Structure formats: structure tokens, C-alpha cells
């Protein structure tokens, strides 16, 4: 009796408790519920433009942590309990898993089919952005000569300057952040540097924390000197002027935030309209302005095309969610990181 009660309580309370912030856009009578991991400040221009163009709609926006959003979406899919009309998350492996569980509705339009195959799966999941994982550093405290341009240089820096950087290097807490986990997991697949990097983090007493915006704030305040694997778009949108961005030269992970319409969404066609709006030239222009689509102009970024590693919306992402893989990976991670210091 007791476990069932507890489960019921969690089911009722979890969605309410887990969302970080909510806001409403537009004043149309039909309310579209969008759950996302994206910071409101970044997504706001897109939704404002959307509700402006679609006067009959208003958007109820809920900002979630990626793990909580995944659990809530799974719950909503299995129990039909207060599903969102659209889910938009940066933890694309979790989104892929939701689609794999047949939790998503199919939708096809000219705009969705124009997406490259790596940004579309089953016509049920679409990658709407292109955001690099970057390193951020405090330009006041890190000397230009010390700025690492690749993971190898970061390793060398931590080795050569142990005292300066000890406790002042931050990255996502992969247990708290689905996106952090995804980045780290892809790092582990991408290169053998990852083992050495973990070792380096361990030696430098690196801090695993949450989340993008907070990490960047702490870099700006000088609490962290270098942050590894943060979302480029967040750095770009940060107000602080003393935060520098490094695009690692060895390779850059590119993430495409995934959009999905739950199979049991009440306003599926409206959610599809939002999808088409974001993919439309106007929507893409706004998304680009907000830094959610990284310019692919090589002369502007000085980036080698071969250095780009897109995380494709394909079934191999399911490996990241495997129980054994997760357990082993987190164990490895915990070995390396100490608990974040209490502020």
C-alpha cells in the first residue's frame, strides 16, 4: 500500500515541483504548453514572434531541468497524465528514447523533410538548433598565453599550473544535467583524450556543477577560471563581458536541440505550427540571432569543417541511456570529481 501511495504522490507532485520557471507568451485563446530545457531569455524572442504571427495561440512555457523533463515526459506518455503539447530539450538522447518508446506523434511538412537526416528521426523528432559545446574562460584572470585552444592544451595547462587552476575548473554535473551527461558521453566516444581529461580533472579538483547559466556567471565572477563543455549559445548570450569562448580545435561537439510532439498531446496541430514556425526562414533568423544556430561560415569562425562533430538524432544515442553504461560512466565520473564545494 505504501509504495503505491508514494508513487502516486510523486506522480502528482513531480511535474509541479520539477519545473524551474514558467511564463506565458501571447494572449490567444488556445494555450499551447511547451516544456523545454532552454532558458526563457533565450527562447523568448522566438515565442514572442510566433504568438505575434498566430494571434489565436498563446504559449505556456515551462522551463525544466533535462532529467526532470525526461522523467515527466515518460510519465505523461505512459499514464496519459498532463502531457505537454510539445517538448523541446537539449538532452537529445532522452528525447530519442522517448520517441523510441513510441511517445511521439508523427508529423511531416516541407520544412521538416528539408532537415538533414542527422537532424530528423522517424519524422517524430527534429533537431532545430546547431549549438557547439565550448570552453568558457575568464578573460581577466586567464592570461592570453595560457588560453587552451584544444583539449590537449587544457590538459597541459592543468598539469603545468596545478595550483592556479585547482578547484577553479568547472564542467556540467553529468548526474544532474542530461545535457552534461550527453556531452561527456560523446566525449568518451569521440576520443581517447577523455580518460586523460577525467584524470586531469581529478588532479585539478575540478568542480562538476549545474547548469550552463550558473557556470557562466561563476566564470564571470572569477570563481571558476575555465569551464569545460558549456553551451556556446549561453556564453554568447551572457551579459558579462569578461567571459571568453574557446572553440576547441581538436573537435567541437555540435548539439541540435530536439523538438517532439507527444503522441497524446492535446494541441498537436498547434505544436506542429510552432515547429514549422521555428523551421521557417523567419524562425531560423531569430534562432540564429539568439545564437542557437552557430554560423557555419568558416572565415568567420576559423573552424575546420572536419572538427565539427554533430550529435546525430540516431538510435546509437540509446547507448547513453543504457543502465550498465550509465552506471559505469557515472562511477568513472565520480572517481574523478569531488563534490562541489558549498558556496
Amino acid at each position, binding site marked *: 500500500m505504501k509504495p503505491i501511495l508514494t508513487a502516486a504522490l510523486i506522480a502528482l507532485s513531480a511535474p509541479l515541483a520539477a519545473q524551474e520557471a514558467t511564463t506565458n507568451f501571447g494572449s490567444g485563446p488556445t494555450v499551447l504548453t511547451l516544456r523545454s530545457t532552454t532558458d526563457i531569455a533565450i527562447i523568448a524572442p522566438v515565442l514572442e514572434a510566433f504568438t505575434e504571427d498566430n494571434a489565436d495561440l498563446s504559449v505556456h512555457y515551462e522551463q525544466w531541468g533535462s532529467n526532470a523533463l525526461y522523467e515527466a515526459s515518460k510519465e505523461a506518455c505512459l499514464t496519459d497524465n498532463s502531457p505537454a503539447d510539445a517538448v523541446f530539450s537539449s538532452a537529445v538522447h532522452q528525447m530519442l528514447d522517448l520517441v523510441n518508446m*513510441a511517445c511521439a506523434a508523427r508529423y511531416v511538412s516541407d520544412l521538416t523533410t528539408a532537415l538533414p537526416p542527422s537532424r530528423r528521426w522517424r519524422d517524430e523528432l527534429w533537431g532545430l538548433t546547431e549549438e557547439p559545446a565550448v570552453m568558457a574562460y575568464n578573460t581577466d584572470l586567464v592570461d592570453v598565453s595560457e588560453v587552451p585552444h584544444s583539449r590537449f592544451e587544457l590538459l597541459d595547462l592543468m598539469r603545468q599550473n596545478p595550483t592556479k587552476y585547482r578547484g577553479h575548473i568547472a564542467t556540467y554535473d553529468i548526474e544532474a544535467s542530461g545535457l552534461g551527461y550527453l556531452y561527456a558521453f560523446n566525449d568518451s566516444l569521440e576520443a581517447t583524450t577523455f580518460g586523460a581529461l577525467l584524470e586531469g580533472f581529478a588532479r585539478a579538483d575540478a568542480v562538476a556543477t549545474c547548469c550552463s547559466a550558473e557556470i557562466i556567471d561563476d566564470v564571470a565572477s572569477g570563481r571558476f577560471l575555465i569551464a569545460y563543455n558549456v553551451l556556446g549559445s549561453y556564453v554568447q548570450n551572457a551579459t558579462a563581458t569578461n567571459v571568453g569562448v574557446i572553440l576547441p580545435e581538436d573537435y567541437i561537439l555540435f548539439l541540435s536541440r530536439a523538438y517532439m510532439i507527444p503522441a497524446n498531446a492535446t494541441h498537436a496541430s498547434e505544436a506542429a505550427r510552432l515547429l514549422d514556425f521555428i523551421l521557417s526562414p523567419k524562425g531560423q533568423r531569430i534562432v540564429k540571432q539568439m545564437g542557437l544556430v552557430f554560423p557555419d561560415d568558416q572565415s568567420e569562425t576559423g573552424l575546420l569543417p572536419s572538427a565539427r562533430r554533430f550529435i546525430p538524432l540516431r538510435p546509437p544515442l540509446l547507448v547513453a541511456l543504457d543502465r550498465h553504461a550509465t552506471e559505469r560512466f557515472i562511477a568513472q565520473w565520480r572517481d574523478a570529481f569531488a563534490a562541489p564545494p558549498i558556496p
Partner: protein
Amino acid sequence: MGSLALPRAKSLLARVMTGVLTILFLGGVLVTLTAWSNGRQAARQAYDRILIGAANDIAESIRIIDGQPVTDLPVSAFELLAQAPDDRITYAVRGPDLTLLTGHETAPLREGRADAEQLYDGTMNGEDARFVDVTRRFSERDFSGVVRVTVGQTRRARDQMAFDLTLDALIPVGVAGAALVLVAFFIVRSALRPLEAIAGGFSQRDPYDLTPLDDQNVPAEVGVILHAMNRFMQRLDRQIDAMRNLISDTAHQLRTPVAAIRAQAESVTEEDDPERAQVAIARLLKRTRSLGVLLDQMLSRALVIHRTDSVPRAMVDLRDVALDIVDSRDHELLAPNVEVELVIGSDPVLVSADEFSLSEAVKNLLSNALRYGTPPVRIGVKQDGDRAILWVEDAGKGPDDAVLARLGSRFERTASSREDSAGIGLSIVTAVAQAFDGKVEMQKTEHGFSVALVLPHVVEDQA
């Protein structure tokens, strides 16, 4: 005759084309089913291999760590499965007691013991899917037992591949089918062209033109029809000829005796002397009687010529013909005092002919011999090698050589304006002989003069 009646039944072209289309349709259905089943099988095999490969990859990655099987899930296995890019995937690794070690609880486990890899169908979230079950045995110090790996995948890519393969197979078949229909149409039309030519030829023909059509430079099947038609037209031609001859001969031959009868009748009416009138009447009667005989013979000849063309041949024993004639004793009317001797053997002498025609011919031979020959008259049948001979012989010397030659040259056309009937009688015999592939032979013998009807002898077994 000029206008062609509209064909009520379907044309040959339509019939043949219906047949061809039916065959092609049935063939098409068969090929479609085969292609579909082949495509399905090929797709199934291709993707089953991927499924097995992925499951084996996963099974290979299992290690025993601290007494527990732990999977180091290989990305390569999922890359393999992603060959079907749009298909959902489920997998499960289960321990010896079937508890889930990692993966999806929903992945269905195959019933019963699974010793080797096993493939089976099922559903995944309501979508048709294919599963494989692979087992791996461990006999480590701290773990012993079977770990089962289940991998499943929806069938979207399979179905697409099967569909594509079927389509790939069917497009050339469809094109070939269309080409076949076209070729068949032209072939059938060109094959039927001779028939159209015949029809055209006939419709443009003069109704009295019964000359044969060319049956050599046509296809064999049409040749058969043409040959039969030509024979039919020949028969028609002969009968028309015979009719024409009968009419003209009759007109010719009747003119003289009828004129003579009229003259004699006139002289009777003008004769005052009763005694001479009596003689004239007797003469008139004789004339009239002989005219009757002439008419009989002419009709008989017409009948014989008609029969030889229209009545099918049968096996006839020439002895029966001779015997019937002697038995009927018709000759006694003609020459009451003459005895006819029959000379026949004990073996049948068979020919293929029409018995009525033969007996008419023989009757004429016999009456000629009785009328113009010298008794005794003998009639006989004999076989000489492959020749069956029916002969009539009298003791006279026969006609003069000049008459004989003239008779010979004019057998086919009766001697016109001759009052006697010997010419007509012989022409009947000649006609019969020719109709049954034989001939008439006349010769002087030790007994006198003999006229023989010679026909090819038929062995009974051949009949």
C-alpha cells in the same frame, strides 16, 4: 454476296488477344507474388543478419565483474541497427533467472528454452517488429549460467526494402508485358492477314469464277482451308459444267429425234392410205421408244457424274456389281433371246467406288454389247495384279477402227446429234472410270470384242 455480314462471334484477333492478355495477367500475378515473396525474404534475411549481428555484438560485450554480468553496450551494435535508420529499437539483457540486467523491460522474451539464436516476430509499442534472442553461457568462478540478449527492431526498413525490391522486379516485368502485348498484337494480326486476303479475294470475285485460289504461298493452316475450298469449288465447277453439258447435249440430241418424230407424225396425218399410215405409226412408235431410251441414258449419265463427285466412296466387290446386273435380267427386255454368261471367280475383287455409278456404267456396257454386238455376250470380273477389271465381251468383231478412234476421242463429250445411245453409254463408262481413278480399255480378243472397266484394286485390309 457483295456485302459482308457483320461477324456475330468475337473476331479471331480479339480471341487471341484475350488469351494472350489472360496469360500475361496470370503470369503477372504469379510474378508479382513471387517478387513480393522474394523481396520479403531478401529483406528479412538482410535485416535478420543485422539483428543477429547486433545481438551478438551485445552478447560479446558482457563481462563478469564482481560476480555479476555487466554489459559494455557497444555503440557499433546500434550503428548496425541504425542501418534501418527509421526503425525503433528495443533490447534487453537478462540473467539466468530472467531478471533484467539492462535494457528495456518491454522487450519480449521468447517462450521456452533458447539454446541458440532464435528469430521471432512480435510487436513493439503496437508496431510490428522482429526480435532475436541470443544466449551466452558463462562458467566463471564467481558466475555460472546463461545470459540472454534480446534485440528487437520495428519493420519499417524491411517493408520498405521488400517493397522496393518488388517494385524493382516488377517494373521490367511490366515493361516486358506491355512489349509482349504489342508484339503479340502485331504477330496475330499479321498471322490473320491471309484470312483477310481470302475474304477480300472472295468478296471481289465474280460469282461464276470458280477457279482455284493459290494455296501454295500461304501458311499451312490457311493452306488447308484454301485446299478444301478449292476442292469444293472444283466440285461445284464440275457439277455446273455437267449441268451445262447436260442441258446443251440434251438440247442437241433431242432436236433431231423430236424433229423426226414431228415429221413422221405429220406424214401420218397426211397419209390417206390406211395401210401405209399404219406402217408410219409403227415407225413413229419406234422412234418415240428410242427417244425414251436416249432420255434415260442422258439422265443416268447426269446422275452418275453428280454422284461421283458428291457420294463418298465405299468398298465395292465388282463381282456383286456383275452378278446384280445379270440377276436383274434387264437385258431380257432389250434382247430377249440372248443369254448372258457370267464369268466370275471365288475371290472378291474390291475397288473403292460408288456401287450405283459402277452398275450404271456396266449396264451401259452390257446394253451396248447386246444391241450392237454379236451373241453370245459374256460379262466377267478378274483381278490382274493391282488392277480390278470388269469386262463385257461379245462374239462380234467390234466397231470399225475408224469408229473406235472416233469414239475414243469423243467419250467425254457425247456424240452430239447421234441418235443412237452407244456414245452416251460409253461416255458414262468413261466418266465413271475417271471418277474412280480408272480407265476404259477396248480390245479384240480371241472370242470377239471386249470392253473393260479397269479400276485400281484395293486390298481389303486397307479399307
